Structures are given as structure tokens and as C-alpha cells.
């Protein structure tokens, strides 16, 4: 069983944190990953900065622009992650846009993921139908699981289909919106979480988009198996740099 699936299976109230590779500085990857790991983050999403991130709000867009200006690219991040592979245990999930993978070469992308010990990817603009017809076999041959998103608008039928082809977790988008910190979780969102929970899906459910602090994390964990914090962490890094990451993580799970 992959490391991430072991963690997904055994743990509850999973905390995942997202950061953009190359932000705030090109070589912050190691300190960010190790600080998050040592402070108890269960798995980490590594965002590949992209020029046109359709599903992302202003915070992640900005961090992507900075990272690209810092010179981050796929070769550099794969080299950084490969170098870290033996000194970390925390599972990494790679999040990037489809065009990056196509241009890099799909095989080569998968091979480099394998070299880095990455077993899970999130490609938000890779739709299920394209995944099934073009990528499922390729990913499987490299032991890579693809994470699918569901939203308040996703039909029950489609959720069941996603549950069926998923072998990692389902990314439960907490609201119909792009990424970004939004404050509290509304009663409408809770009703949606409850509806998903009642479906008794086989997959682990991780909430994301708009989860920003202890309160929104705890609320999400009442219904889901865990949650992902992205923009709030990017904002924190933007303000405080990489020295006090422990403080950020403790503000959520202590």
C-alpha cells in the first residue's frame, strides 16, 4: 500500500497543507516540507507554479507569479524533491495544470514523479473522461493515483463514478469558487458536507478551498476525514517567511 493510502486509512482529522514550489524563494522547498512534516502535517501538496492557473484565486496566482519569476520550473522542483526523498516520510501530492505535464512529456513527468517517490497527483483541469481515455493506464503503470474534485454542483451519479475510479482520496471542494481563504463555513456548506458523508463512499474525503484556520479545519473534520489549507498558508509565508512555520501549523492543530 502506498504511504499516503496508509495514512489516509489509519488517521482521522488529517491535515494537509499546500504550498507553491519556488515561493517565497526558489530554494525554500526543503525548509517548508521539513517544517510542515516535523510539526505534524499528515501530507503535503506541492503546487507547480503555472502562468494561467484557472482554478486558483489571487493568493495562489500571486505566489505562482513570484515562483516563476524566481526561476522555478519542473526540472528544478523534481530535482529538489528527489534530493529530499530519503530524508522525509511525509507523503507529497503534486498539484499542477495539465499543460505543464503535456509539454514536459507525460511519460517523463510520471517517471520523474516516481523518481521523487510521488504517488499522488492533482491536475484540476484533467477531466474524468480524458483521464479514463488517455491517462489512467499511464498513471497506473507508474503507481500514480489521480485525485478528483467534487463540488456542491457535482451530481450524485458522478460522485459515485469518481468514488469508483479513485484510488487516493476525493478532494471535496467546500464551495463553488476558486481557491482562497473565505472565513467561516456556512450552513449551506455543512449541509453539503453532510450530504456527501451520508453517501458512505469508499474513498477518504478531504475538504479544500476556503479552509483557512482552526475553526474551519475543525468544522470540516466533523464531516470529512481531513482538510487542505492552501491560500492561508501562502498568506502566512508571504507575511512571515519560512522561519515560523511551526507557529502556523500549531495554530490549526494544537
Amino acid at each position, binding site marked *: 500500500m502506498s504511504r499516503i493510502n496508509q495514512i489516509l486509512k489509519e488517521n482521522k482529522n488529517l491535515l494537509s497543507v499546500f504550498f507553491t514550489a519556488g515561493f517565497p524563494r526558489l530554494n525554500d522547498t526543503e525548509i517548508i516540507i521539513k517544517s510542515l512534516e516535523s510539526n505534524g502535517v499528515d501530507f503535503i501538496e506541492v503546487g507547480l507554479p503555472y502562468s*494561467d492557473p484557472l*482554478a486558483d484565486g*489571487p493568493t495562489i496566482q500571486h505566489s505562482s507569479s513570484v515562483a516563476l519569476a524566481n526561476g522555478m520550473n519542473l526540472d528544478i522542483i523534481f530535482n529538489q524533491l528527489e534530493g529530499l526523498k530519503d530524508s522525509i516520510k511525509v507523503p507529497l501530492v503534486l498539484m499542477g*495544470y495539465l499543460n505543464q505535464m503535456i509539454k514536459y512529456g507525460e511519460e517523463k513527468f510520471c517517471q520523474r514523479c516516481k523518481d521523487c517517490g510521488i504517488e499522488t497527483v492533482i491536475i484540476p*483541469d484533467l477531466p*474524468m473522461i480524458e483521464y479514463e481515455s488517455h491517462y489512467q493506464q499511464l498513471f497506473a503503470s507508474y503507481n500514480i493515483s489521480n485525485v478528483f*474534485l467534487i463540488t456542491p454542483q457535482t451530481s450524485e451519479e458522478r460522485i459515485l463514478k469518481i468514488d469508483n475510479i479513485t484510488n487516493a482520496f476525493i478532494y471535496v471542494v467546500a464551495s*463553488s*469558487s*476558486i481557491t482562497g481563504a473565505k472565513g467561516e463555513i456556512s450552513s449551506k456548506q455543512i449541509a453539503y458536507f453532510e450530504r456527501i458523508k451520508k453517501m458512505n463512499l469508499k474513498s477518504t474525503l478531504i475538504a479544500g478551498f476556503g479552509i483557512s484556520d482552526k475553526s474551519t479545519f475543525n468544522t470540516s473534520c466533523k464531516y470529512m476525514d481531513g482538510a487542505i489549507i492552501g491560500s492561508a498558508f501562502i498568506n502566512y509565508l508571504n507575511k512571515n517567511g519560512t522561519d515560523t512555520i511551526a507557529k502556523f501549523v500549531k495554530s490549526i492543530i494544537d
Partner: protein
Amino acid sequence: MSYFVDKNGYYGQFGGAFIPELLYPNVKELEDNYLKILESESFKKEFKDLLDNYVGRPTPLYLAKRLSEKYGATIYLKREDLCHTGAHKINNTIGQILVAKHLGKKRIIAETGAGQHGVATATVCALMDLECIVFMGEVDIKRQATNVARMKMLGAKVIPAISGSKTLKDAANEAIRDWIGNPEDTYYLIGSVVGPHPYPDMVARLQSIISKEIKEQLKIQTGNENPDMIIACVGGGSNAAGAFYHYLDEKNVKLIAVEAAGLGVYSGESAATSLLGDVGVLHGSKTILMQDKYGQVIEPYSISAGLDYPGIGPLHAFLNESKRAEFMNATDQEALDAAYELTKIEGIIPALESAHALAVLPKMKLKKEQVIVINLSGRGDKDLETYISNLK
């Protein structure tokens, strides 16, 4: 070989709907309904009525005698520049606003580069009394103050896109992000044959009125509905798609798509996607686009704001790959020269975009008996400042 979209939304390897799950219901709703709506009697009747009586169709097919004499061929201009609001863009916005109404949408969003599609969208929203929000790059807002004012006068809200390079591609990104956040009441009115399926096909169908009219008019004027050649400029490619549409299967009609070469194809300041781009995904469809070796989208350049788009529609990517269309290009200077020439010898000031289509005439070996149709997609009022400042 079919040049029309297949049942999965593809033109050969190009097209599809590469959209985040967040947009799936919106795009699926449109995909499930667009053909039903477009083929319904009520839509057809209303669309035709508005095209005839509001837009001013059919637009003339004009035999440009002096231009013909100059280049030694028989050259017709399809006068889309005479459409209401000044360009072919309104054919599409009229059609899509009717689709939006059929779907019961209350809020219309659009992206715009130079502002032509924004104005055409604001116009139909005023006509239909629908809320209109136009995303426009912050850089373009400064460059196109008149069109911004027109949109506001028409009642639209213009929101600056401040992400990325702050131009057309970023305006499209912002519109898509807005749509993600407003999945139920909002209709995204795309301005070209780009975006996820079914947009490229829907926009091509709505613009196909151009080639339908060319066929009818050419038959009357020459006895033959097929010209030897059709020339149109391509940014995203909606006017070219419309001008080519009913000729796609007529193999003896040569199709020429003209891209903007900016300061020169390989100058680093260009928008000649067919030469500089390769396969990838942009704004929800697989196409060819200008990108670096890591797949980051490159900001294109052209003097013409309607042509500086880093991709081309998937239909055009396929026409290029299959060699059904020949892709040519024209630099800023060649387009300016062509615009000044048409103004002087035919008394028509073309849009800078359309001037690119005219600008390939001197590069071709033509024969007197050859019949050529150039799609004059828009008029040059919006470009007067550029024309004046470049006059020598």
C-alpha cells in the same frame, strides 16, 4: 476527412473540454442543450430577425475594382465591417444571448481584448435587459479607453483583470474564475472559437452566416458560389471560422488564415501561433499555443489587440495540421500599409485585424481570372489613433 466537430467535441486531436470539475455542470448544461436550441424554430426565427433588422445583414459582398486591378485578380470584400457595432463579433453575441435566454440565465459574463467583443456583448445585454460583466486586462483598459466608455454607456460593468500579463488571456482566465464562482445563474459568453467544447463549434455555427451569405452572393454576382480563395485573419479565429465554414468540404476553395507576426515572426514580439506554438491546453481546449519549454503560456504581441492571443481555436489548429488551410502572416507594418492602401483606393478604413488579411495580397502570385474573397471582419474607427500616429 471531416473538418467539423466530432461527437466528443474534437477536431482531430484538437478540442475537447479540459475544464476543472468546478465547471463541469455549466459546460455540460450547454453541451446538452446548444444544438437543440440552435436548431429550434423559435431560435432560428429570432436569430434571423435580429441579424436582418438589428445587425444589418446580409452584409454586402463588394467587388473591389481598384484593389483587383492593383493585384491582378478579382477581389471581393465581405463587408462585416458594416455590421452594427463595427465587426462580425455581434453575429456571435446575438446568437449566444439567445442561447443564454433559452437556458434561463440572468447574468452574462465575457472577456475582451481590444473591447470589440465586450462592446458586442454589452450591446446585446442592453437589448435583452440582462446584467453584463466584462473582464478586460488592466493593460487593455488603458489602451482602449473609448471601448471601455462604450461598454459602460451600454450599462456593462467592466472589471479589470489584474492577474498574469493583464491582457486578453488573463481576462479569459478571470471570466472562467467568475463562472466557477457563479455556476447557476451565469452564462459565459465567449467571443471566439476557443474555450471548452461546445464553444468552438457553437461560435463557428453562429458565425457561419458569413460563408452562407458569401455563397449566395457570389452565385448571383459570378454564377459560381465557390471562389478560388478565401482570406481571413486569425486571432482566436471566429471571423475565419465563419468565412470558411460552408467551404470546409469544398476542396477546390483555398482557405488562407492570416496570423499577426507583430514585429516579425521570430522577433520575440509576435502572435504567429501556427509557427511559434505547439500542442497544449489553453482556456479549456487542446490546441496549439505559444508556450515555453515548461508549458508556461507566452504573452503574444501584435499591433492589433484582436489578434494578440497566444493560441488559436481547435478548428484552426486542425485546419493547419491537416493542411486544409494555409497559414500565412503579416507584420504590424505590412498590416498598416495594407490599411492605408485600402483606405486610399477603395475608401474603406479597415480594422487593424482585417488589414492583416489584406496584407498578404502582395505576397501572392495571382491571376486575373482568380476569384478571391477577403473577409473584412471589422472597421477601423477603433484604430484611428494607431493609424494617425503611424502615418508618415
